[in-house]
């Protein structure tokens, strides 16, 4: 029995040789980036390249009474100028709704708005020029007369609906969802302790360092469109370009080279990017659009503007009986295509209370339109909100009951032996490890000693706080996420593996690389599955003309779904190679194995045939092989998770802060995260995903907010005013893992990319509130700025 080739890697009792899986090897593709020799869209050079810039609405809501582009069109270097109607001839509008989000509604959205702008920054004209600078010069000569319309920026006013943004839709409610297990009122009636709090979450955004970037190159002779795109989902975009530009799908090729950060920002359909593609068709030449930083702040999707009231009922002994949630979120004037802007709120409903074993749960959630920029899925979609309000209210209950917060969690976390488990919101957990994770965390951070230190320091007027946040996380989504709702977004992914004549292995995967290390992880799996050294594997991703069809990289799916496809393809290739070897060596296939790029005797490991020799024979001298035998040294395999809607992961974070109670400044001293992403392919890459994610979560907790005036003007749309975490203020982050692989796949990998962002804000909030406890003060509105801390303390 060949353990390595056939068993799931996580089979019980198996002495499986995992090869590179589980090893912290550096990723090969990092070398070009370290020398500045990557290829981001803006690095590509094209003859006759035109640059498009957009004339954007200065108002949050206004009717365009008159638009005159003639003067702009006459400026030096200008090639063309277009309004919304002209572009609409080439690009059909879209509506961001999905069938499984019952009742969700949104108005049609055009690549360039026609007649009316519904948020500041919405493009109403495009100017194409020989250089970006000339295009911007010409924008100064666009003449527009506007009639300002009533503006709705406050969520609760939007819900009340005195002013309706889209009259055709009847009200400002995009989507609403209620959930009730029954028994909630009874649970509250019999509770010994009830706690309630209202949490607010600032709208923030992803700030990918590379702005959104697209270069569309239409070839009129072939009626083909090649799009170089900084995107997470090349096949989804291929489909979208095809359908909306009316070009056969086979004629659209999306190529995704290096991507300078994505975090969910680059998985949506943006009007200006669609317009760029349309204009390439219109002008029959390559056209490029790179969102500059100001455009990024105005038009990259925002996320997380929520106000949520949560109540829980507990017994005197500290058992949580029920959760009751009311959540309101505002998404701007359109539900974003094609994933919709209903998902974030939906996830808050799904996930609130998720780590705990109560059986009663009620939620009411409303998603409303406002005249601010659109919001949609950004890293950890809905999780940071669900985790913060769950963990905030749990801490409050523990405090009221006089129970240590770690102990309170231990009482209420779903037992590790309870799986499979269905949570009251309907989501199913295959296997989680909350208690193991909690134990590991408390040990890792020396919880008891920290508590003692905290007490001792308080006597010296030093106010430290320790905050915990348990979490569950959606990863490896099945077709239940988007496909069932009618979205043409692939839940399956594929990998093609090819043995080259030189003994190298080429791995072509449909999942994409945006810096997480997807290509490195795929190389590790491929090398391990085939039996070659890591440096003998080349990975190709991000080209719809080349790779198998797939969803790309989002929702923490790259390793778990794409990785399983590579594993299966690698095993199949290995099997095919051994068949060739058996013929060449006149040996029994079962006696052979592949180790270190050589066919060996399986038992003695004696070298029998290097792959380079096998490749030579298979490709150049197949005449020496049996007549009826044809070698197959290229194989493709696909994988779709189907048994569960999502492969849930779990984890717990802790944060240690010191609050300066005179200034309200919060100093982050240390952060810990224990998480369970199943089989770990590369511990270093996973740790770095966690750390980067934690820091984005810290950004949300302490710094980041898109501030709007009542008139819908973004007030801090530059990197000088919108604060992102920088190195000096960030703490060291200690990461540890529990490995509970799901049985659904042989690889057993779950996602890890969003866990840090999901849990960090809740942990930071709880730490601040723990520090403020002697003052009976607490904060509940993110970001926790010095002013908000001072307000909580009653000092301002």
């Amino acid at each position: 029995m060949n353990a390595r080739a056939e068993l799931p890697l996580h089979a019980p009792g198996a002495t499986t040789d995992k090869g590179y899986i589980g090893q912290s090897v550096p990723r090969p593709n990092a070398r070009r980036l370290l020398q500045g020799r990557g290829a981001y869209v803006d690095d590509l050079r094209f003859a006759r390249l035109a640059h498009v810039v957009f004339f954007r609405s200065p108002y949050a809501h206004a009717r365009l009474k008159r638009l005159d582009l003639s003067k702009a069109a006459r400026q030096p270097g200008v090639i063309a100028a277009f309004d919304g109607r002209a572009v609409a001839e080439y690009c059909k509008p879209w509506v961001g709704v999905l069938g499984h989000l019952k009742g969700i509604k949104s108005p049609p959205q055009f690549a360039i708005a026609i007649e009316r702008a519904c948020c500041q920054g919405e493009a109403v004209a495009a100017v194409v020029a020989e250089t970006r600078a000339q295009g911007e010069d010409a924008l100064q000569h666009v003449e527009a007369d506007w009639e300002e319309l009533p503006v709705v920026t406050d969520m609760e006013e939007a819900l009340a609906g005195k002013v309706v943004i889209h009259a055709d839709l009847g009200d400002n409610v995009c989507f609403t969802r209620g959930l009730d297990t029954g028994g909630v009122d009874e649970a509250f009636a019999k509770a010994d302790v009830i706690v309630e709090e209202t949490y607010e979450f600032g709208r923030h955004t992803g700030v990918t360092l590379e702005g959104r970037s697209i270069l569309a190159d239409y070839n009129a002779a072939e009626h083909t469109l090649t799009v170089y795109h900084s995107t997470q989902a090349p096949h989804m975009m291929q489909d979208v370009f095809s359908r909306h530009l009316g070009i056969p799908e086979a004629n659209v090729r999306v190529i995704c080279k290096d991507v300078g950060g994505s975090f969910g920002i680059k998985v949506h359909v943006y009007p200006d990017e669609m317009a760029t593609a349309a204009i390439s068709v219109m002008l029959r030449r390559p056209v490029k659009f790179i969102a500059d930083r100001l455009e990024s702040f105005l038009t990259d999707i925002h996320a997380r503007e929520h106000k949520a009231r949560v109540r829980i009922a507990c017994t005197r002994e500290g058992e949580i009986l029920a959760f009751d949630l009311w959540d309101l979120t505002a998404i701007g004037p359109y539900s974003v295509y094609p994933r919709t802007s209903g998902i974030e709120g939906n996830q808050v409903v799904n996930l609130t209370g998720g780590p705990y074993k109560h059986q009663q749960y009620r939620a009411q959630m409303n998603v409303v339109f406002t005249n601010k920029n659109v919001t949609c899925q950004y890293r950890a979609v809905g999780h940071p909100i669900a985790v913060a309000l769950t963990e905030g209210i749990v801490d409050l209950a523990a405090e009221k009951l006089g129970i240590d917060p770690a102990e309170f969690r231990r009482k209420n976390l779903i037992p590790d032996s309870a799986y499979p488990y269905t949570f009251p919101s309907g989501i199913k957990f295959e296997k989680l490890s909350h208690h193991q994770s909690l134990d590991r965390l408390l040990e890792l951070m020396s919880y008891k000693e920290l508590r003692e230190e905290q007490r001792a320091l308080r006597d010296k007027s030093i106010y430290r706080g320790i905050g915990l946040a348990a979490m569950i996380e959606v990863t490896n989504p099945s077709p239940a996420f988007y496909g069932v709702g009618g979205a043409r977004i692939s839940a399956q992914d594929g990998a093609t593996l090819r043995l080259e004549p030189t003994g190298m292995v080429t791995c072509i995967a449909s999942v994409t690389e945006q810096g997480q290390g997807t290509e490195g992880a795929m190389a590790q799996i491929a090398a391990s599955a085939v039996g070659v050294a890591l440096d003998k594997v080349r990975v190709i991703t991000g080209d719809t003309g080349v790779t198998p069809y797939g969803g790309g990289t989002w929702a923490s799916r790259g390793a778990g779904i794409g990785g399983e496809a590579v594993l299966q393809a690698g095993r199949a290739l290995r099997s095919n190679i051994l068949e060739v070897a058996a013929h060449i060596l006149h040996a029994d296939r079962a006696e052979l194995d592949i180790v270190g790029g050589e066919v060996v005797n399986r038992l003695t490991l004696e070298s029998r045939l290097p792959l380079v020799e096998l490749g030579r024979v298979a490709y150049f001298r197949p005449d020496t092989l049996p007549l009826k035998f044809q070698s197959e040294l290229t194989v493709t395999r696909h994988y779709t998770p189907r048994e569960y809607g999502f492969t849930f992961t779990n984890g717990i974070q802790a944060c240690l802060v010191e609050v300066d109670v005179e200034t309200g400044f919060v100093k982050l001293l240390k952060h810990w995260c224990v998480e369970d992403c199943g089989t770990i392919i590369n511990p270093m890459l996973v740790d770095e995903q966690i750390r980067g994610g934690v820091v984005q979560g810290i950004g949300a907790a302490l710094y980041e907010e898109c501030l709007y005036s009542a008139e819908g003007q973004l007030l801090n749309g530059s990197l000088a005013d919108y604060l992102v975490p920088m190195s000096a203020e960030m703490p060291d982050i200690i990461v540890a893992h529990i490995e509970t692989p799901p049985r659904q796949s042989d690889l057993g990998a779950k996602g890890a990319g969003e866990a840090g962002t999901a849990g960090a804000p809740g942990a930071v909030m709880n730490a601040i509130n723990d520090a403020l406890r002697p003052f009976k003060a607490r904060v509940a509105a993110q970001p926790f700025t010095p002013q908000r801390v001072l307000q909580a303390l009653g000092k301002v």
Partner: protein
Amino acid sequence: MDDTLPTTLIVNGERVTRNVAARQHLSDFLRDELGLTGSHTACEHGVCGACTVRVDGAIVRGCLMLAVQANGRKVDTIEGLSDSGEIADLQEAFHRRNALQCGFCTPGMLMAAQDLLTSQPEATREEVREHLSGNLCRCTGYQAIVDAVEDVLGSRRRGRK
């Protein structure tokens, strides 16, 4: 039309002369005129540090210096530092520690790190964090970068002894 000025620079040791529009900043000049696309522009208002290059040996924001201001001066970019081997140990440490993800900040980050390594060879971990605070990395959370720089501080110190 743009006012252009003949401008001569020594870029990565090579003399280049171009007629340069007065308004073109150094980063755009390096990228668009010379094809040295290793330096990135990500904010163009001096905050993010992705455009950091060296002018006459000192790190500067490429987006906050006009190409014409650099007339007659020596400019070093990530491509030059890579080819000369000057930061090979630092790049190796970044690679080993996975101190980069998307790589967009990396050239600027390496420039800032090399500046620290040469100007403050005894820097503490806190000083490393401070020195790099002018360079935004949205992916890593910074810790691996700080670890990598500390590794090289140590190895260069040992190398000198």
